[in-house]
């Protein structure tokens, strides 16, 4: 049986959207899970992990075992393939190509978006910015006016490495697939939690770009609940109030303060 998007042997032009598990603000899981659910995108394929993960044991998070995942979902109506997986540990380029190969069994990839979060000194009630990094002038031009901040100059600092999303975008360019990294700003202390406001920003962008006509109002409720939890934590723990006040006024905390605030918020606001 041909893959669903491969009707009559001709693949329809479509979009690949990729995200990572346990991304900053849980952007990857939040966005792809919502899209899968609302678009009824079904699991269509997965990628064998043994070529890309050491598999010398299993990760345990909050007492739950986790096995590396790399799953593909398809929404036929929008010709949309969603990829959600763990970041590979090695053979990254081959991994990206496998993602493209598998996606192209279902659609002819016309555009590719990889989403991610950027940890910043943003206060949690502030608006989330979306930043676009493109692998071609055409893609940049086509996204002009879509609300993405798009005039960045950047070089990886000497003590850091490029993001996995930059590498993914570059691999797309090698295959002549037009693509963009869509980064949403996330308050650093929400990095390990669902940042619903950031997830909504990314979904807003995809909603418009792909004409998905999705109702995103649920995100406002979820964000409101998160903010109530943060307020409660502030009332309970004076240090948190002090740190958050500093972030709000000066957008600055030292490393120890950042660690402490992130820990307090995570422990008190996780689901």
């Amino acid at each position, binding site marked *: 049986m041909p893959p669903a998007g491969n009707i009559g042997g001709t693949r329809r032009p479509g979009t690949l959207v990729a995200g990572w598990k346990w991304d900053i603000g849980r952007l990857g899981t939040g966005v792809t899970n919502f899209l899968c659910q609302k678009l009824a995108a079904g699991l269509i394929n997965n990628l064998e992990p043994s070529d890309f993960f050491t598999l010398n044991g299993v990760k345990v998070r909050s007492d739950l075992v986790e096995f590396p995942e790399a799953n593909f979902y398809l929404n036929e109506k929008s010709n949309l393939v969603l990829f959600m997986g763990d970041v590979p540990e090695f053979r990254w380029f081959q991994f990206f190509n496998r993602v493209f190969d598998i996606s192209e069994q279902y659609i002819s990839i016309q555009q590719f978006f990889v989403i991610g979060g950027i940890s910043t000194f943003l206060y949690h009630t502030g608006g989330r910015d979306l930043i*676009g990094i493109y692998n071609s002038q055409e893609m940049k031009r086509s996204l002009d006016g879509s609300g993405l901040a*798009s005039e*960045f100059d950047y*070089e990886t600092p000497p003590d850091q*490495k*490029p993001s996995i999303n930059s590498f993914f975008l570059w691999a797309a360019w*090698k295959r002549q697939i037009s693509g963009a990294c869509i980064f949403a700003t996330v308050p650093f202390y929400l990095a390990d939690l669902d940042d619903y406001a950031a997830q909504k920003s990314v979904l807003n962008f995809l909603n418009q770009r792909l004409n998905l006509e999705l109702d995103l109002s649920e995100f406002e409720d979820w964000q409101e609940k998160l903010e109530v939890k943060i307020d409660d934590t502030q009332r309970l723990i004076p240090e948190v109030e002090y740190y958050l006040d500093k972030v709000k006024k000066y957008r600055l905390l030292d490393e120890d303060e950042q660690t402490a605030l992130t820990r307090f918020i995570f422990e008190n606001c996780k689901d």
Partner: protein
Amino acid sequence: MGVIFYQEPQLNNPDMVACWPGIGNIGFIAINTLKSQLEVEELGEIESWEFFYPLKSVVKASILEKLIFPSSKFYFKKRRKRDLILFIGEEQPSHGDSIYARGASAYRIASLVLEVANRFNCRRIYASGAAISFTHHELKPRVWAVTSNRDLKREITTFANVILMSQIEDKREIGNITGLNGILPGLAKQMGFESMCLMGEIPDYLAGLPFPYPRASRSVLEILTRILELEIDYSNIDELIFETDEIVREIYYSLPLETREKIDQRKSNQSYLHGSITEEESNWLKEHLDDLLKKTGGS
């Protein structure tokens, strides 16, 4: 995916010398010294993205302009007798939990290097790495050799300061060379090349430190230049030796007196084994490594 050639020179029965970083960067410094001294020309490079995570990204006006990967480059030098090809890999392809390549990536990159050797009719492949030894940092590092055949084995032992791995007291007939500096001569032998790995000695108590050990690189260079009949100037590597000797001395004097005494026995006892530091002492070193490096200003 494979190798990109910048030019296709006619080379006369070249030898190939290859290296990747490893303990003390011993071979890496030796071969890089050759590269800088010989006025080599660039021959080509392995498409690195197949093996490595990028080191740097450059974004201009929000366009991803380029990713820079660890380089894996070939160089050549035309000479009166046999020509020379150098291969320098800036990193070993990692496998998630180790700095040494292994498995499919190691085999693939070593195969690509040897495909180039084959294309230019190389006769011999030389690799170089580290030999962790119960030696002393004030002793001249010896060069341990392993070869692909008995003739080469005989040939290499005619050079002073070279010792076969089997002659090391605790090694007997069995040894192991970790990573690509070992895999390459092994695969080269299987593909029908003559091959040799030259390993400069590094004292066991310095092997875990994150800085180079150019004394051993010099020993390797002395042998390689004689084999390949090359003349080089050692002043740059001697300068590097001078700098690292300072750090090594400071580390040595920060060791407990008992450990120092044990290490010092090695200077008068060429079998070395009697002066080996215990596992406990080795663990002590590892635990205090950060403090030692802070004191000495190492990184």
